[in-house]
């Protein structure tokens, strides 16, 4: 009934959709022989395979990232281990290893000295008992009839040799600089050819220290002989002057009022010469000509003082090296020898100035350890002017504050 109510087209359409229409049959019969060109098959199928391969390659597995992180860590650790095993690199990474060794040796000597004193006091109380060993090899010597004091002296000798092995390079350079400086200052008053005296040995018994300086020095088992400069120049131990402001034309050397008496006197008479040129208060009493003359004179003195300081810093090159930097200040025409030596000292200082900051720090510490406070202070000021951004170690910071 429902099919009778349908339009004829609907019936035809239903037959067509069902595949029963004669047109559909005729079309299928007519077109069944039409095929796609086979030459396209290979191209399309190969493109499909390539696309699958590319997708496989580009897909990154999950384990790639953790493995990459682990590999990076492993390589980094390996490089660090290799660097640490290399002694040269380790020495670079820890430049104060020698100093720490020295400190360790000092502490060991202190401890052994205390042990020795204790054992000797016990030996004095009970002479019948065999003496306590002062050190590792002191007991055999005591048994062999060698007195304990001699054993201790040998021990101290060995420690001094050990310490000298660290200090020898620095002393060599210092000797060179002193020989170069010659008779320029009282600090370096000793003739360059004079050999450095051997350090005095600490006596075997602690109660019999020789010399008046023993009370002020720590009893570390060795008492180094103060350098002749310290003996000859008591003014070198004077309290430090205020830090000298750096002037580009004059270099960065602070004043040293103990080098020349005339200089010290001039400094005392005219303290304004140590200030900056623009800080000089206007001298109402003097005319401009006199002021200019005074300034020139002060700068010349300053230069001669700087020459001495540069020589005291310690040169690392031959004094005959040409001067690479000269101050634009006219030196006083009186002393040509002083000019020549000042030029040489400039070159020596310049050659030292090219040294890395670690060398400067080591040198300053060495000067301090030897009691040359003034030289250490001057060198520290020079170092600060040359390396203003360098962060000083704690001990030198304290020294700087103390110097101020």
């Amino acid at each position, binding site marked *: 009934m429902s099919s009778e109510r349908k339009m004829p087209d609907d019936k035809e359409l239903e037959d067509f959709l069902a595949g029963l229409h004669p047109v559909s049959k005729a*079309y299928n019969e007519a077109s069944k022989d039409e095929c796609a060109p086979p030459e396209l098959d290979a191209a399309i199928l190969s493109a499909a395979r390539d696309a699958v391969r590319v997708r496989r390659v580009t897909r990154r597995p999950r384990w790639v990232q953790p493995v990459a992180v682990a590999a990076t860590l492993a390589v980094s650790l390996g490089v660090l281990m290799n660097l640490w095993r290399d002694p040269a690199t380790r020495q670079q990474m820890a430049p104060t290893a020698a100093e720490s060794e020295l400190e360790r040796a000092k502490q060991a000597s202190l401890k052994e000295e205390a042990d020795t004193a204790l054992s000797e006091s016990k030996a004095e109380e009970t002479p019948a008992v065999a003496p306590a060993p002062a050190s590792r090899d002191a007991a055999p010597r005591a048994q062999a009839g060698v007195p304990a004091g001699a054993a201790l002296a040998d021990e101290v000798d060995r420690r001094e040799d050990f310490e000298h092995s660290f200090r020898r390079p620095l002393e060599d350079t210092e000797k060179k600089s002193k020989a170069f400086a010659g008779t320029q200052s009282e600090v370096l008053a000793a003739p360059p050819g004079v050999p450095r005296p051997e350090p005095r040995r600490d006596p075997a018994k602690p109660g019999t220290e020789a010399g008046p300086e023993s009370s002020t020095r720590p009893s570390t088992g060795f008492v180094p002989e103060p350098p002749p400069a310290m003996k000859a120049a008591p003014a070198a131990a004077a309290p430090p002057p205020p830090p000298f402001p750096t002037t580009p034309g004059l270099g960065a050397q602070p004043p040293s009022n103990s080098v020349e008496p005339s200089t010290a006197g001039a400094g005392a008479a005219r303290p304004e010469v140590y200030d900056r040129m623009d800080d000089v208060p206007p001298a109402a009493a003097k005319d401009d000509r006199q002021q200019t003359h005074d300034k020139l004179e002060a700068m010349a003195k300053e230069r001669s003082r700087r020459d001495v300081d540069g020589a005291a810093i310690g040169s690392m090159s031959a004094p005959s090296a040409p001067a690479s930097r000269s101050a634009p200040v006219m030196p006083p025409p009186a002393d040509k020898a002083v000019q020549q030596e000042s030029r040489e000292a400039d070159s020596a200082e310049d050659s030292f100035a090219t040294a890395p900051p670690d060398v400067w720090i080591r040198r300053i510490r060495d000067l301090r350890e030897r009691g040359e406070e003034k030289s250490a202070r001057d060198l520290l000021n020079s170092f600060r002017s040359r390396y203003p951004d360098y962060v000083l170690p704690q001990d030198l910071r304290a020294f700087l504050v103390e110097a101020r």
Partner: protein
Amino acid sequence: MQRYQRGDAAAFEQMYRRHRDPVFRYLLRGCSNRERAAELFQDVWMSVVKSAAAWEPRAKFTTWLYRLAHNRLIDDYRLARLPTESIDDELPVAAPEHEQPEAAVCGAQRLRRVLVAVQGLPVEQREAFLLKEEGGMSLEEIGTATGVGRETVKSRLRYALAKLRQELGDVL
């Protein structure tokens, strides 16, 4: 298609073998040129390969495949400003009924007349007819592939059948 998405190249080949000839015939009837049909055929299947990674099984693969083919045909119509040539030159034009000898009613000529009649349909009607005949698609699927509604497809098919019946009434 999902197997091919997972990297099974053999699945693509199987799919290709199944749909290769119907798609080619659909394109051939649509553009009336074998060379051009071959180019469109390659383009359609390359589009399938490129779009396989992004394909989602929201509809039948056949519907998606013929939609790609339909879009390529539309682009080709726009380029050629069709319909200008409705009859392939290679196919002999059917002579008027009164001019044909009695032997012309033989099988081969009858089939050619069917093809000529199909190619003589308007584009929309021909597409609906071909999608049904070659793709085996339902009214809804034809509407999805061509972007029209079901009733529109129905109407187009009605007109197409009426025209073919009129053209081929003597041979059917």
